[in-house]
């Protein structure tokens, strides 16, 4: 897109300049659709939520106002705090489990599979379930974990337990299990990506200097895999913090999460209360992300 014709162009007589617009203008035009979509469906709704969170409401409708009532209601209630604690518990457990599983799966793919074709094939095997319906994947645990499910019937047949174990399904255990099942790939992909970029000669060098396998892992591989772990953590933490469907389906309605609380307020049309909750949740999630981002610069990682 140069404005000056290059020698080659002059020679070939190709000096027609339809698109002699400056580069920055072209870039702006190219970025416009993205900006418009995000502006209308992301920025505007968030601003609207912030506005509505100060409004008044009753069963009949919303009334524009400027009250702190919705915030005092939500922050002054011990139910909110308990729900946050519960959500944090799910997040911490899911994050730890997906990190460990995700790291070892990625490590195996990156360092123990010798051909690229095989690597890609196995990676695809891991990816495919994540592209299918989340809700169906939650439901698929029912015949496995239920009272007469596969796990219980196996345990009884082996004589390990006298009667079915109740806490496998519709419990916090089931919620965390499903969350790990749904979100591990978000850890595997970025970690695999960073591990593949590690210069193999660094590992050779560490070995030559007499490092044991664990020392190589601890001092070379792990520090270099940090950015991938951070990106994976951002995904898992934000997804689990905002989850309501997994909690609802897998706990059988016995457990709560912040988003589920919001969803219930929405179904009662208490939009300002839900909006105040949304603002608080948004601040919490963004703080968590900011904390993780101290570890990694995303733009450098792409």
């Amino acid at each position, binding site marked *: 897109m140069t404005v000056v014709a290059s020698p080659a162009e002059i020679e070939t007589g190709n000096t027609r300049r339809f698109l002699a617009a400056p580069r920055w203008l072209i870039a702006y035009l190219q970025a416009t659709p993205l900006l418009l979509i995000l502006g209308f469906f992301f920025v505007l709704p968030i601003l609207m*939520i912030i506005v509505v969170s100060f409004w008044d409401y009753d069963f009949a409708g919303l009334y524009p106002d400027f009250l702190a009532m919705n915030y005092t209601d939500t922050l002054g209630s011990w139910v909110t705090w308990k729900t946050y604690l519960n959500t944090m518990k799910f997040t911490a457990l899911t994050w730890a489990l997906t990190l460990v599983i995700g790291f070892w799966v990625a490590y195996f793919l990156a360092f123990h599979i010798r051909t690229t074709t095989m690597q890609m094939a196995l990676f695809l095997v891991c990816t495919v379930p994540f592209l299918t319906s989340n809700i*169906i994947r939650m439901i698929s645990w029912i015949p496995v974990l239920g009272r007469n499910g596969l796990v219980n019937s196996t345990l009884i047949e082996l004589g390990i337990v006298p009667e079915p174990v109740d806490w496998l399904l519709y419990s916090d255990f089931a919620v965390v299990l499903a969350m790990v099942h749904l979100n591990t790939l978000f850890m595997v992909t970025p970690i695999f990506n960073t591990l593949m970029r590690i210069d193999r000669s660094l590992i050779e060098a560490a070995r030559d200097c007499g490092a044991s396998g664990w020392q190589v892992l601890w001092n070379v591989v792990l520090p270099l895999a940090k950015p991938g772990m951070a990106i994976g953590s951002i995904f898992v933490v934000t997804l689990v913090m905002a989850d309501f469907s997994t909690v609802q389906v897998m706990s059988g309605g016995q457990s709560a999460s912040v988003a589920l609380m919001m969803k219930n307020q929405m179904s009662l049309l208490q939009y300002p209360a839900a909006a105040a909750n949304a603002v608080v949740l948004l601040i919490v*999630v963004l703080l968590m992300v900011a904390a993780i981002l101290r570890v990694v610069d995303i733009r450098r990682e*792409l």
Partner: protein
Amino acid sequence: MNRDARTKEFYILAAFFALFVLFLYGPLSAIVILSFQGPDGGLTFPLNGVSLHWFYNLFETQAVGDFGASFRRSFTLGLMVTVTNVVVALLAGLAFRNRFRGSTALFYLTVASLVVPSIIISLGIGVVFQQFGLRPAWYSSGFGAHLTWTLPFGVLIMLAVFNRFSPAYEEAARDLGATPWQTFRHVVLPMIAPSLIGVGLFGFTLSYDEFARTLMTSGTYNTLPLEIYAMTTNVTTPVLYALGTVTTLFSFTVILLTVAVILLLRRRQAKLS
């Protein structure tokens, strides 16, 4: 790593990986098997006979929700999202190759769109449409809600692609007298085609399964995930599993077709070079 014999570490990790794959596919295969229950089969093993009873049941509208119509809506929406996603993400990817004023802000806005909880976006779009007096519908508010989730993925993929894209090819094309449009059409586009198809597939599958952002934005008519979600609370027959089997098979087909197309393109490129 090392080309010598497999170490103990390899076997332990291979076993771990195999367990992980079993963990991923085990439950799925359980519902696939159970969806072939006989007419009086229940939600758990053992199988009471083998039949296609529940699949027939699925396509009778009165037994469960309107599965056919919600599938059509999800499919149409998925295609709309796919096309928009590819075009907008490609343009944005091209834009980000030049440093323009505000590019960093736009980048962070894109990432923020991924990070902000789905239910908040859902609520926000719902409230915006309500306050502006617009009727939410799956093809307007739902469509926008989906884009806030699929577009950032698309843009990030395109950024990664263009970060690894050598400008030498375009310079060569320009030196040979190609116009900017010819350079893009005959040099850049063929090289990034597999990635674009990947962006398209990603957009489609994300949209086809999207649930949280559709909750408040779909209006009167349900998309398929909403339909399934409603079913989980009131359907207690294997018809639920039959539905799971059908949608999962559909997803698998879409993925495999896409992978096949990408491989074909790669092979053609390998032949050309």
